C-alpha cells in the first residue's frame, strides 16, 4: 500500500511539474460587463482548465471595444462575442454579409472563431403577457394595428439604426407615445403598466422574471447575433477543440435560465458554469467559488498593489520635479501646466485612453493612478519649499552650505510636513480611484462594486465599498502617525 501511495505521489509530482512546464502560459479569457458574458467567460475558462491548461478568467472588463483591443494586443486570448456585434461594431465599414465572410475577415486578423454556441441574443420587443393576450398580439407586424400603445425604449435603442428608427420605418409603425429611458426602469414601467412595450435582449433573465411575452420578428428586421467565442489563433488546438464542444449546446432557453440564476437568484457565475458543464457536457469541473474572506483578501492585495506601486512611483517622480519646479520657475510653470491638465482628465476616460498602449490590467491602472498622484505631491513639495521663511533660507546660505547641502539638511526637512501631506492626499485619492481599476481588469475593491451594480446586489457593493473606505481611513491614520512620529515641529 505504502509503495503504491509513494508511486502515485511521485507520479503526481511528475505530472504537475510536466504540466507546469508544458503549459506555463496561461490562457486568459475575458468577458464583457454584463451577466451573460461573464457566465460564458466562466464556462469557457472551466472548459479550458478541464482540457489541462491553465486558464484565468478576467471578468467584466468593459464593452466591446475594450475586449476587442485586449484580444488584438494579446492581453486576453479569448472572449465571448456575438456575430452581429462584430459585423456592426468592429467591421461596420466592411459590409460583411455572411458568417463565412466574417470568419474570413477575422482570420486575416489572426482571430479564430468557435462554432456558434447555439443561441442568438438579438433585440426583441417585449410586453406583459396579460396585456399582449388581451390585445391578441404575438408578432411585431401586428403592432401597426394598435397606434395607442405606449413604447419605452432604452436610450441606446432609441438611436441605433437597428433600433426604433429602423423598426418604425420597416414595420411602418404609427405610435406617437415613444420615449427613451434607462433599461432597468423600462422593466418597472412595464410591470406597473405605465408602458406597454420595451426593447429587451432575447436572453434577458428578466423576460421570465416579469413574465413578459416577446413578439416574433415576423418580417426579420433584427440581424442575427449568434453567440460565439473568439480567440487569437495562437491558442493551442486543444483549447479550440475544447471550446468547440460547446457548439449548439446553449440554446436561447438555456442561456436565459443561466442568466436568471445569476441575475435573479444571485448564484455565483462559477457555480452556474460548473453545473451547466456537468449537466450538458458531462464535464465535471470544480466550481472554484472562493470564500468571502478569501475574495476580500485577494482584492485587498490587488488594491494595495495598485495604490502602493503608483504612489511609490509618484513620490519618486513628483518630489524631484517639485524641487526643480521651485528652483527653476520657467520649468515650474510648464510642469504645473501639464500636471494641472492631467488632473482634469476624467479617470474613466484616462483609463480607456491608456488601453491601446498598455492593454488591460495593472499597467494602465497603475499609470493612471500614478498620473493622479503626481499633482498633489508636486504641489505640496513646491509649497513646502516656498513656505520656508526667508530668515531660515538665508541663515542656511550664510553658513556657506552649497545648494545641495542646504536642500538636504535644511530645506527638505523643513518642507517635509507639507510634502508628507501631499503624499497623504495622493494616497487617499488613490484608494478611491483604484476602485475604477476593476473596469479594466486590474481587480481590487472595485470588482465587487462593479458586479454588485450589474446584479443590483447591495451586499456585493458593500463588500467592495466598505473595505475601500476602511483602507482610506487606515491610510489617513498611518500618515498621521508618521507625521506625529517623524516630522512634527520639535
Amino acid at each position: 500500500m505504502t509503495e503504491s501511495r509513494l508511486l502515485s505521489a511521485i507520479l503526481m509530482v511528475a505530472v504537475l511539474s510536466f504540466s507546469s512546464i508544458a503549459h506555463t502560459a496561461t490562457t486568459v479569457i475575458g468577458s464583457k460587463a454584463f451577466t451573460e458574458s461573464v457566465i460564458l467567460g466562466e464556462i469557457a475558462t472551466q472548459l479550458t482548465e478541464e482540457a489541462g491548461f491553465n486558464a484565468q478568467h478576467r471578468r467584466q472588463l468593459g464593452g466591446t471595444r475594450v475586449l476587442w483591443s485586449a484580444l488584438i494586443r494579446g492581453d486576453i486570448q479569448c472572449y465571448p462575442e456575438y456575430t452581429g456585434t462584430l459585423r456592426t461594431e468592429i467591421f461596420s465599414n466592411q459590409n460583411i454579409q455572411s458568417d463565412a465572410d466574417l470568419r474570413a475577415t477575422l482570420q486575416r486578423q489572426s482571430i479564430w472563431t468557435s462554432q456558434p454556441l447555439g443561441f442568438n441574443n438579438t433585440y426583441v420587443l417585449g410586453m406583459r403577457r396579460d396585456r399582449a393576450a388581451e390585445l391578441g398580439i404575438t408578432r411585431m407586424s401586428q403592432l401597426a394595428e394598435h397606434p395607442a400603445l405606449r413604447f419605452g425604449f432604452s436610450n441606446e435603442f432609441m438611436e441605433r439604426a437597428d433600433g426604433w428608427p429602423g423598426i418604425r420605418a420597416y414595420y411602418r409603425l404609427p405610435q406617437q407615445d415613444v420615449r427613451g429611458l434607462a433599461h432597468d426602469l423600462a422593466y418597472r414601467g412595464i410591470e406597473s403598466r405605465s408602458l406597454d412595450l420595451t426593447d429587451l435582449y432575447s436572453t434577458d433573465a428578466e423576460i421570465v422574471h416579469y413574465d413578459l411575452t416577446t413578439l416574433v420578428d415576423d418580417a426579420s428586421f433584427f440581424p442575427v447575433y449568434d453567440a460565439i467565442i473568439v480567440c487569437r489563433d495562437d491558442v493551442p488546438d486543444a483549447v479550440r477543440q475544447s471550446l468547440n464542444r460547446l457548439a449548439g449546446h446553449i440554446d436561447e432557453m438555456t442561456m436565459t435560465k443561466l442568466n436568471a440564476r445569476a441575475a435573479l437568484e444571485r448564484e455565483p457565475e462559477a457555480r452556474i458554469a460548473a453545473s451547466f458543464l456537468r449537466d450538458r457536457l458531462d464535464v465535471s469541473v470544480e466550481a472554484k467559488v472562493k470564500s468571502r474572506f478569501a475574495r476580500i483578501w485577494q482584492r485587498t492585495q490587488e488594491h494595495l498593489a495598485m495604490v502602493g506601486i503608483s504612489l511609490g512611483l509618484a513620490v519618486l517622480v513628483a518630489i524631484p520635479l517639485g524641487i526643480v519646479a521651485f528652483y527653476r520657475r520657467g520649468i515650474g510653470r510648464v510642469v504645473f501646466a501639464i500636471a494641472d491638465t492631467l488632473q482634469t482628465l476624467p479617470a474613466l476616460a484616462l483609463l480607456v485612453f491608456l488601453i491601446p498602449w498598455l492593454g488591460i490590467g495593472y499597467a494602465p491602472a497603475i499609470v493612471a493612478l500614478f498620473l493622479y498622484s503626481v499633482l498633489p505631491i508636486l504641489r505640496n513639495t513646491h509649497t513646502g519649499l516656498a513656505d520656508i521663511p526667508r530668515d531660515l533660507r538665508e541663515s542656511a546660505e550664510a553658513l556657506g552650505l552649497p545648494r545641495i547641502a542646504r536642500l538636504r539638511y535644511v530645506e527638505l526637512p523643513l518642507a517635509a510636513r507639507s510634502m508628507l501631506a501631499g503624499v497623504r492626499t495622493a494616497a487617499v485619492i488613490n484608494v478611491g480611484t483604484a476602485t475604477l481599476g476593476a473596469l479594466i481588469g486590474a481587480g481590487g475593491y472595485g470588482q465587487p462594486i462593479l458586479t454588485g451594480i450589474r446584479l443590483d446586489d447591495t451586499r456585493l457593493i458593500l463588500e467592495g465599498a466598505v473595505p475601500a473606505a476602511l483602507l482610506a481611513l487606515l491610510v489617513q491614520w498611518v500618515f498621521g502617525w508618521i507625521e506625529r512620529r517623524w516630522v512634527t515641529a520639535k
Partner: protein
Amino acid sequence: MLMSCAIAFEHVTHRYTHAVAVDDVTLRVEAGETVALIGPSGCGKSTLLKLAAGLVWPQQGSVFVADRALAPDNLLEIRHRIGYVIQSGGLFPHLSAVDNVTLAARFLKRDRQWIAGRVAELTELVQLPRDALDRFPNHLSGGQRQRVSLMRALMLDPAVLLLDEPLGALDPMVRHGLQEDLRRLFQRLKKSVLLVTHDMAEAAFFSQNIVLMREGRIVQRGSYRDLIDAPAEQFVSDFVKAQRGLHAEALDD
C-alpha cells in the same frame, strides 16, 4: 595696500525692484574693529549686511571680505570666514541646538573631536547652560536662542561677524545681560564686527565707530560724542535727540 581690511564696500549700490536700498556706499571695517550701523527703518543697513554675506549682490561697486572681492566662485569659501546672526536667531527648528551649531562643520567633515572641543569652548564663551545644547530651538528661551545662534556663527572661527539686530527681539532685562556678555566677547575675540542696530545707546555701548545711515547713504561716521558735538547735518541731531528717549526727557524736566 588699499584693501587691507576685514570688510570693505566700494561704491556699492543695490536696488530692489522699486527702491534703492544702498546708494553708492563706501565703508571699511578694519581687522578687529567693531562698527555699529544705525539708522531709521529702511535706511539700508540690513541690506548692507546681506551684501557682505553675499545674500544679495550689488548692481554697482564691489564688496570685499578679508581682502577678497566677493564673487560667485569664492562665495562658499568666504562665507566660512563669516558669522551671521539675525534678529530671530535663524535657528533651524528641526535641528537641536548642538546640531544647529555644528551643521556646517559636520558638512565640511571637520574632525569629530575638534567639533566636540569647539562646542564645549563656545558653550562656555557664550555662557549657555550645557543642558540647553540638546534642546530644540522652540524649547529655548529668547536669550538662549541668540546665544546658540552666536555659537553657530562662531563655530568655524570666522574673521568677520555680521550681526543684524541680534538683541532686537529680546526683553530689556535679557537684552541688557546679553549686551554685557557680547561686548566682553568682542573684546576677547578681536573679531571684525559689523553690527546693525536701531538703538543709539546700544550702538554707543558696543563701538566708537558708529555709522549713521539714511535712505541708502552714509550720513556720518564717528563716535557717539562726534555725532552729538559735530553733527554732519540736521538729520543727525534729530536722530540722536529722538533716540535719547523719554526717560532722558523725563530726567531733564
